[in-house]
């Protein structure tokens, strides 16, 4: 390595100038837009950024590459298929939806930069379905400062809706981890009061919020709580810890791949507790296909490999092909999807795309950023859709779906153990849902009306 620093500053200056000019040229191509994407003031009927007579541009950040990409990268393909489906039906109020997805590799630094690009350069009207807690944390302030509607964050963290004053433009979508923890906790406390409960938690807000919810009901019954770090695929030591503590019921708050991994490790350890996976981790179809490979009958083939496992359910998935919603998704996927089959990740993407289309309908023809937020606060709780329980949207809460039911997986599909239960964060009681969301069906053409 015989290099030397040779007259550095002169060259630095030259390079700096060159690079900066490059940047300047890039920027110079744009029209003077008078202050960027400040659509937040929503001045009297003026067209919002990203909205024209016949189009609406929206964006999202997802991990499309890297370690977090497997699985999650399917969500935007589902959403895109549904938006294409809606566009084929004429769009919303005559506007075609243009859906721009950017890769952040699950790295908050990248999320920040692609969100800047989406908001400032692409001038999207709204962010729809941005995925991940740490990633979205990096941009939630920016989106709210800029007044960009930040809908349906793909993460169950509480911060996407428990404080609408701090983040007036941000809305959650899926049931937050805390209420899932509460519903699971109460179910176990009532039905399995003697169980020695072990917790298997992902070491982030997912595990933390869920643990908080579970412990409201089960604090005495918990004998061990083990945490795994996402990305470290060796969960042997954690499962061995649960086994050593004598847990006979394991509540697992983890992603699907870790469901498969924990099942494999349990086999290795000869550990056979009752498993209770969170909704996130219980994609029976996916886990089953993952587990189906293991030979010598050590694991039963197909999606039945999770039989007997308990979980929760808040939207119908591909294990219920007769559900009218799933039939709609299948049709959408067949007509507009990429190659590959319909998966629960794609169903998830379509479900929140459906909710967004409905939000657009509710916001009316004069689409503004503040307008759609107001509309969501007013009528958001009445949104139709595949979700089994209604959204909690109001001016006091931007949290998403309010509840779920507990099911046991049999033959790869869930069998109901409870009716749909709803609740809210904190001390809110858990009650049966009477909204009738469960059991509804999509409209004939598959495109929602304003609620």
């Amino acid at each position, binding site marked *: *390595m*015989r*290099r*030397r*620093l*040779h007259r*550095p*500053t*002169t*060259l*630095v*200056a*030259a*390079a*700096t*100038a060159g*690079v*900066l000019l*490059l*940047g*300047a040229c*890039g*920027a*110079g191509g744009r029209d003077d*837009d008078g202050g*960027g994407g400040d659509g937040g003031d929503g001045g009297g009927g003026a067209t919002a950024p990203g909205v024209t007579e016949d189009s609406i541009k929206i964006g999202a950040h997802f991990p*499309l*590459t890297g370690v977090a990409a497997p699985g999650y*990268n399917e969500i*935007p393909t589902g959403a*895109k298929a549904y938006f294409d489906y809606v566009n084929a039906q004429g769009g919303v109020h005559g506007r075609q939806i243009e859906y*721009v*997805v*950017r*890769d952040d590799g*699950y*790295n*908050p*630094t990248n999320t*920040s*930069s692609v969100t*800047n*690009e989406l*908001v*400032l*350069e692409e001038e999207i009207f709204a962010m729809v379905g941005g995925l991940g*807690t*740490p*990633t979205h*944390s*990096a941009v939630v*302030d*920016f989106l709210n*400062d800029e007044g960009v509607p930040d809908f349906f964050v793909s993460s169950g*963290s509480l911060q996407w809706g428990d404080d609408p004053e701090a983040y007036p433009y941000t809305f959650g979508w899926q049931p937050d981890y805390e209420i899932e923890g509460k519903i699971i906790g109460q179910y176990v406390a009532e039905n399995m009061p003697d169980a020695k409960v072990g917790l298997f938690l992902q070491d*982030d*807000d997912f595990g*933390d919020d869920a643990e908080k919810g579970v412990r409201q009901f089960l604090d005495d019954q918990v004998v061990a709580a083990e945490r795994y*770090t*996402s990305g470290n695929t060796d969960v042997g030591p954690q499962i061995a810890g649960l086994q050593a503590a004598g847990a006979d019921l394991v509540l697992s708050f983890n992603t699907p791949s870790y469901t498969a991994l924990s099942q494999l490790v349990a086999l290795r350890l000869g550990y056979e507790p009752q498993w209770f996976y969170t909704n996130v981790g219980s994609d029976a179809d996916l886990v089953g296909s993952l587990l189906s490979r293991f030979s010598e009958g050590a694991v039963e083939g197909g999606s039945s490999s999770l039989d007997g496992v308990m979980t929760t359910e808040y939207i119908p998935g591909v294990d219920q092909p007769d559900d009218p919603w799933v039939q709609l998704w299948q049709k959408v996927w067949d007509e507009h999807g990429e190659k590959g089959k319909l998966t629960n990740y794609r169903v998830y993407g379509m479900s929140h795309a459906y909710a967004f289309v409905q939000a657009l309908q509710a916001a009316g023809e004069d689409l503004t950023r503040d307008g759609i937020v107001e509309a969501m606060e007013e009528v958001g709780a009445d949104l139709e859709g595949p979700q089994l329980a209604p959204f909690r949207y109001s001016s006091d809460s931007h949290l998403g779906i309010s509840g779920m039911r507990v099911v046991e997986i049999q033959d790869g599909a869930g069998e109901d153990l409870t009716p749909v239960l709803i609740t809210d964060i904190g001390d809110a009681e858990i009650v049966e849902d009477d909204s009738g969301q469960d059991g509804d069906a999509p409209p004939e053409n598959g495109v929602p009306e304003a609620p």
Partner: protein
Amino acid sequence: MAALRTRASAWWAGSILGRHLLVALLGLVVVVVVLESSSDFRNLQLASMAYLGIAAGGLTVLTGLNGQISLGHGALMAIGAYTTALLLDDREASTPLPLVVLAAVVVTLLVGIAVGAAAARLHGPYLAGATLALAVAVPGIALYFKEQLGGEQGLRVVLPDIPAWVLDLAYFVTGQDLTRSRYVAYLAWLTLVITFVLLANLARSRVGRRWRAVRDDEVAAELAGVHLGRARVSAFVVSAAAAGAAGAMMALTVRLAAPSGFTLTLSLTLLSAVVLGGLGSLAGALLGAALLTFLPQVVTDIGVDAGLSDIRAAELAPLVYGVVMVLVILLAPAGIVGTVRTALLKRRLRRSAAAQTRTAGTNPTAPGTPGTPTTDPATTTSKGSTT
């Protein structure tokens, strides 16, 4: 202390410092012109380029001038970023921004002393292995001390309000209101210019000569009275301090310090920026940073324009980036700046050779061929010989 001495000696050789300051001033003017004429998005992109550039600048000093490889500079940036985040946890945080940055630098510098002292005895791949472990270990600390460091979600960074005088000054100079994005970009570039002036002066000073001496030939350096350990540690510390400043700027730009922002990828990215641009050259570091900032987006856009789906286009970016890395190493191993310099030098030599009559026995490439490793017949004989 070393820095003080350097500063003093640089003053003596006033012309060097003067020249560096002049160039820095020019650079600042360019920065103002460019930042004022570009959009908020470009401003933030340029801010990213600046913090990558600062860290790469520090790394190029370590690797290019002192010959130490670090695969762990991302971890050092994390320390700077977390320090910043801890000091700027709400809008009422009263610590002035320069102090925050200084604190980030000092904390990183202290860590740099510890790491550098341990690393000083290690060579080549052993150093690479130790720093690699550092790069993956540090994010784990943030996960473990969840209460203090925010765990996986990380710590929010609240950018303090822009001081009124800054707003006034900006308006006075440019006639435009200063947006927050542009403010951040100014901070980052100002830090970059200051860092680069300091690094450039250090490189030209006695300390810099010692670093190079150690890199070129340890035994000779030791015989010449250079304390090997001290030279190594000081190079590491200086480079860590730059990484700390870069981390602080990154925290301000991204407004978050989270473990997933400081994966191994970041460290490796920095190293590749340094090598792509041209090892040992600050200009190369800046160029590498520019490449890293702009290349992925450009490639993704091209992919989308060519009709690829979002996923495919996103997968294209790392592919192109990796291919560029491989090609630069194979075709232009001196990096972009090094290759350009050699080409320019060759042309100049050819021209002067044409002007002069050829004299036999002269050595056309001998005096100060920067950027290219000189092949010395004595050292090419065997790479695995024993001593």
